[in-house]
């Protein structure tokens, strides 16, 4: 099946195949980002701004509004992989561990 993603409830959620999978309020460690001057940003995700699917994987991606709690810079991230569809047959999703370091993709 194809992967259907959208943001919900004013940006509270990334929904993947009609299941609320990724919520705001987590801290994400981000490398190679242009959000602030920190080498690794400690980013509080406050709202989902945009969602998309990268066919390889298939990887579910999102851009979040929020703030680096290390330096205080506010902004919107580039595309972050938030999880993958591990079972293309039933659309089953596995989220990434937000506490490990993530690369921001463009």
């Amino acid at each position, binding site marked *: 099946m194809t992967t259907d993603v959208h943001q919900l409830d*004013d940006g509270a959620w990334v929904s993947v195949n*009609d299941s609320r999978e990724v919520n705001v309020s987590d801290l994400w460690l981000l490398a190679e980002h242009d959000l602030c001057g920190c080498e690794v940003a400690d980013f509080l995700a406050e709202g989902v701004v945009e969602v998309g699917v990268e066919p390889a994987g298939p990887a579910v991606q999102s851009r979040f509004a929020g703030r680096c*709690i290390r330096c205080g810079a506010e902004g919107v991230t580039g595309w972050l992989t938030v999880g993958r569809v591990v079972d293309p047959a039933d659309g089953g999703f596995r989220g990434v561990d937000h506490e490990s370091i993530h690369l921001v993709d463009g």
Partner: protein
Amino acid sequence: MPSKVENWKSEVYGAEIREHLMRFAEEGWDAIPDEEHDAWFERFKWWGLYHQRSGQESFFMMRIGTPNGVLKPGQLRVVGEIADEYARGPAQNPEFGNAYCDWTTRQSIQLHWIKLEDVPEVFEKLEANGLSTQQACGDSWRNIVGCPVAGKDTHEHIEAWSVAENLNETFKGDEDHTNLPRKWKVSVTGCDQGCGQGDINDLAFEPAEKDGELGFNVRVGGGLARKEARFARGIDVWVPREQVPDVAGGMSALFREYGDRDNRFNARIKFLMDEWGPEKMRRVLQEEFVDFELPRAGEDMREQYTYNAGDGQHGDHVGVHEQNDGNYYVGLNVLVGRMGVDGVLELADLAEEYGSGEARLTQRQNIIVTDIPEENLDPLLDHDLFEHYSPDPHPFMRGSIACTGTEFCSLSIVETKNRQVRYARWLKENVDLPADIEDFHIHLSGCTASCAQPQIADISLRGMKTRKDGEPVEALDIGLGGGLGENPRFADWVEMRVAADEVPGAIANLVENFEAERAEDESFRDFVEARDEETLAALVEPEETDYDDPYMHNTKQTWYPYAEGDDSLDASPAPTDGSGDPLPSDD
């Protein structure tokens, strides 16, 4: 391209959602097809049902819209009985027990832990008693707000209750206005205190005089959400009271036609106001949406506004006040707006015994009982209930407002209501305000949606996170010096990411510094306005004290922040069936 939500709305929206809701309720939670969850949850909002956060699937927050906050005689008891029977969750809240009502900052009522299967019975009981959840959430006319004592107030210039009631009756359910690009918040003020809080609504009617006649000036485009706070702007229009519905309907239709349906984050009319400005707003309204000549704005009464004005004086309807008919009303302080059902039911009895049985909700999350003859005041006030819900509260109790937060809300970053209760108690014990400061407002919102209206408080608190010894902890941004009044002002955000257990210490130090440095009689708001952010930040000084905060460690990752024993998401009983027993999981 229309947003996904717009696509769902174009399939089924408005009143017709109800039959589907009733069918799902009858068949049970599992009857909602998995692949249609998102569409139905979005639609249920129109009928006042907002699903609770993760770990609480199948439970709903239910919002009852009470126009202008008015609960007619008997309705308070009905609300209390419904909360008692249907709003009992699977776990206790340590401050409030397990059945309570939330009085909200838009004069509505929120109940939690409502099960889908109970919705038909709840609706039946509400509607048999003239109450409704219709359009309490979702993209249309929300609960209309106004001066809570409209129609009874000695400060009132135009009787505004019938105006608000008429708008409610005209536009709720009117199919031309039930599917708007986004929420539509309307306020009607008739008094000289400004307690309709029009400045922070999408559309506001405010008392104004034109050629010797009293009517309303019109403002458009207020709202606080998402770090995009705006005050409503005057569009140079005055309306006599008979024509309020024409102008309100015209503005709502304008929003329906020109609001952004492609991007929900850009949909509120405040963004259209940014783009067009007030002159174009007026011109389009005149040319396309009303069929009479709009009079230019009249003389307003804003210079007298005291409600939430940040001048250190009361203006909130708490206490005992005379009505325009010689009876009295008694405004009770409800800390963070949450009242246990026993209190609700007792108050309903007292309102009937000593008054007319009517009650009213305020935008400061408080409740008022009305129509009390003078001779009944003392016997009424003798009841113990008034010790807990006081008509003469300490300023820190009186000034506290808090939103829903991580207890139930998906957007939240931090715990709110229980924390604010603890803050208020600690501040009352440990901090002395200068003797002439009778009102001091502290509003806590769990995220930037700003449901607790933090930007218009003396001290604004907004959910954040920080690290303490490397560990993530709940934190708050601190803003200062907001308020409404003649010239409203949003708080300046001066100190960011203060660990939540250091906030009471920060407020204590700030109050001490304020007292030491203020000019004689200077209000807190003026004090803030006269200083730059750096100077103010230096006055805040966060520090740990003997205040103890049990909610420091990411309450959002529990299934319920106050669950006894295992509070992890995996330990949640949700989703449940209609009797509250866990349903087997699909995977």
